[in-house]
């Protein structure tokens, strides 16, 4: 047995060069000076957060700080200088020099044939390599700031302003590109630190939430086809009148794990069937179930996710002069959902007169479907599989249980498969216990070190083994039990143990969608009968096609 000290949070600070003087200077900065440090627990002190969960970054004029579309788990505080946020439609990808994930070459992939250890599982060599940080600057890309400002709408942010909180809090991609206007010094706070600041300081919580709401609203409205063509002035009016509502809790997974699927239906609807419509409901994040009363129950007609909206058809009919128009379905949050409510009078003023065709009525079509056609969707909604973007579905009518998929997974991950060919079943479909790379990866919520993060380029949820401290928070948070904790061994096959307690060191392990492998996920390529596919439930029709 070999031993190493048990990894701890803050073993590897976000910035190795952050010194005590830097911390003292930062704590004197207005954004931190007002914080009551006594409110922070002893094990997570304020200076500890600043010291370990943040880092100082310096940018030259024109340097890209964050790129739209990249996944990041951190927010930025402007300490000195100014930065510009490029508003929609944003910069072309070629100008941003997009990062690509580090794919293996063919030879490197092939060499796994003899490098894999089939005799010893979960071999690790910890030689002190530096950690891959949760969120980094955009890699030194420089653009002509004057040209950008000439061809795009931008918003300038100065000292004391926070940005990047949308991606950090919503666990999603960056919604805008940010470029340094002048020489700028920024404090990047990884999301674990941001979470603690929000948690223990009311001022930061209100400030972050306020910025988050204001920025999210504008970004979302600007991207929606209904409002995209509006002049800036009108868009400002729409934004000012729009209500930002949140239902449920961001850490919905805790409650979901305690309840069964059918119990999770007992929630108060946001709007109910038969209500008079008062505004368009646009989903900004999370999920909502659209149901209609049938018999003694509620039938799910569909579900709404980011980018969907509800009630436009009814509101349009009211505008056309039809009388006694009520909502034909209810919508209820699934876990949590961010909703933008655009009032009727705003639509009358800015949207309906510009509509060339009446809105499509998809609900009627959904209601007319045979009852049993919806069972797969009902199941997927109840089990929250709709959260997955790369859900591993196995068609049991085709699967010969050869386990070639599991072997392929092992052969691309050092001899250790990252999933188990078992899971929940509906009819002849099985959703296996493989990471689904969720739209809302709640596994990231509690990670104290940021070891579990989204790959910047691909958006895959991956684990940095070197910074994983084996706390099991991600495994416990995953509502689908798709993360396993494994005991790690040295190349001789000995269990690596904590030098202090002698207990085995454990690490989190899960599917990484072969994001480093050439050719994509090995499990899909290895299935000899096309029984296995990685799908998003948004593409339910694709399942039928796969049959």
């Amino acid at each position: 047995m070999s031993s190493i000290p048990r990894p701890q949070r803050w073993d590897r600070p976000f910035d190795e060069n952050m010194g005590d003087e830097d911390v003292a200077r930062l704590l004197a900065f207005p954004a931190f000076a007002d914080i009551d440090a006594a409110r922070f627990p002893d094990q997570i002190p304020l200076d500890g957060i600043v010291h370990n969960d943040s880092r100082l970054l310096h940018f030259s004029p024109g340097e890209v700080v964050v790129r739209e579309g990249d996944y990041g788990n951190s927010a930025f505080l402007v300490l000195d200088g100014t930065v510009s946020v490029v508003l929609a439609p944003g910069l072309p990808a070629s100008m941003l020099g997009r990062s690509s994930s580090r794919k293996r070459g063919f030879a490197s992939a092939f060499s796994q044939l003899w490098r894999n250890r089939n005799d010893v599982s979960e071999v690790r060599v910890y030689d002190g390599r530096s950690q891959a940080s949760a969120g980094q600057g955009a890699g030194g890309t420089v653009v002509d700031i004057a040209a950008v400002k000439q061809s795009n709408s931008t918003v300038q942010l100065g000292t004391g302003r926070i940005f990047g909180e949308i991606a950090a809090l919503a666990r999603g991609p960056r919604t805008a590109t940010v470029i340094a206007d002048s020489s700028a010094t920024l404090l990047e706070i990884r999301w674990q630190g941001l979470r603690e600041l929000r948690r223990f300081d009311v001022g930061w919580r209100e400030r972050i939430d306020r910025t988050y709401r204001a920025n999210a609203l504008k970004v979302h409205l600007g991207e929606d086809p209904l409002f995209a063509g509006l002049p800036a002035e009108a868009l400002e009016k729409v934004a000012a009148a729009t209500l930002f509502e949140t239902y449920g809790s961001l850490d919905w997974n805790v409650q979901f794990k305690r309840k069964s699927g059918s119990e999770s239906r007992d929630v108060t609807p946001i709007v109910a069937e038969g209500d008079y419509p008062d505004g368009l409901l646009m989903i900004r994040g999370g999920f909502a179930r659209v149901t209609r009363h049938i018999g003694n129950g509620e039938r799910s007609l569909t579900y709404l996710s980011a980018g969907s909206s509800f009630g436009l058809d009814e509101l349009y009919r009211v505008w056309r002069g039809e009388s006694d128009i009520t909502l034909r379905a209810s919508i209820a949050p699934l876990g949590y959902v961010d909703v933008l409510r655009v009032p009727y009078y705003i639509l009358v003023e800015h949207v309906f007169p510009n509509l060339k065709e009446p809105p499509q009525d998809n609900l009627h079509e959904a209601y007319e479907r045979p009852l049993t056609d919806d069972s797969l969707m009902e199941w997927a909604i109840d089990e929250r599989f709709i959260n997955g973007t790369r859900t591993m579905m196995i068609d049991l009518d085709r699967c010969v249980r050869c386990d070639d998929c599991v072997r392929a997974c092992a052969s691309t991950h050092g001899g250790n498969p990252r999933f188990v060919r078992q899971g929940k079943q509906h009819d002849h479909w099985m959703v296996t216990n493989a990471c689904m790379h969720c739209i809302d990866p709640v596994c990231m919520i509690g990670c104290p070190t940021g070891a579990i993060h989204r790959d910047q380029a691909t958006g895959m949820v991956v684990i940095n083994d070197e910074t994983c401290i084996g706390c099991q928070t991600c495994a416990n948070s995953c509502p689908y039990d798709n993360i396993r904790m494994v005991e790690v061994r040295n190349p001789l096959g000995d269990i690596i143990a904590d030098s202090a307690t002698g207990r085995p060191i454990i690490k989190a392990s899960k599917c990484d969608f072969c994001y480093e492998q050439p050719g994509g996920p090995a499990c899909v390529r290895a299935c000899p009968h096309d029984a296995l596919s990685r799908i998003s439930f948004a593409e339910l029709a694709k399942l039928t096609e796969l049959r």
Partner: protein
Amino acid sequence: MTLQGSIRFALRMALGAGAVVIVAVVAMVDHGQRLELLRPELVTGWVLLASVVFLALLNVRKKLSMVPVGRASDWVAAHVVLGVVTIVIYAFHARTVWPSGYELALALLFYAVILSGLIGYLLQRIAPGSLANLGYEVIWERIPAELADMRERIEVSILECARETGSEVLPRLYREELAWYFRKPRFVLASLVGTGVASSWVHHRLDSVSIYLRGKEIEHAEFLRECARRKVHIDRAYAIQGLLKCWLLVHVPATYGFLVLVIWHLILVHVYLV
């Protein structure tokens, strides 16, 4: 259909067309050479060897999951199509169903490969549906652990029954008869066919002693029945999954045996006949 789906459909069509072309060319060459009193066996033999080597490469593909060498399902489709083509080429080459001498061994191995392949193909089409309809999914390697777990729970129940009631009926029934049934998968052939023999066997035994059971004992007997119902599913899963693995135990070794004899055949042909 998606673009990817269309490409794959086109690929499958191309495979079929390619197979027809190969057979047609081989038939033409064979016919032409025979007219010219040449030895078409040499051509058909080498084509046959190339086909068999390509067919055997499927096993290599399975070991190379880490590199992008095409989807396994496309390889399997090519394997099946070329397998059928190989039968036709073999017929051109051998010109007899039952050769003599060592060639008989060669032919028998070829037939074993073809027959096991056909059986395997059919099994892979039929068996997955039967497994899915069981409504009980278990990983083959975990079946012993599942049974051990079930046995442990049954034995705890039996001991509890003896402690609570002081009756020897269920413990004796378990020791004398049911322990055998729960030890490992039983009635494998019957499970495969789905005759319900296993279910009847257990329930008959439980029914036989039911007249001696009272109160709590009936609850424990009901638990045994429940376990027996689950065991029937496990046995059936074991039988079907076993069958899905068994045919490969003939197909793969017979292929390698065939290839070894083919090399011997090549040496003999080129040393003594050509």
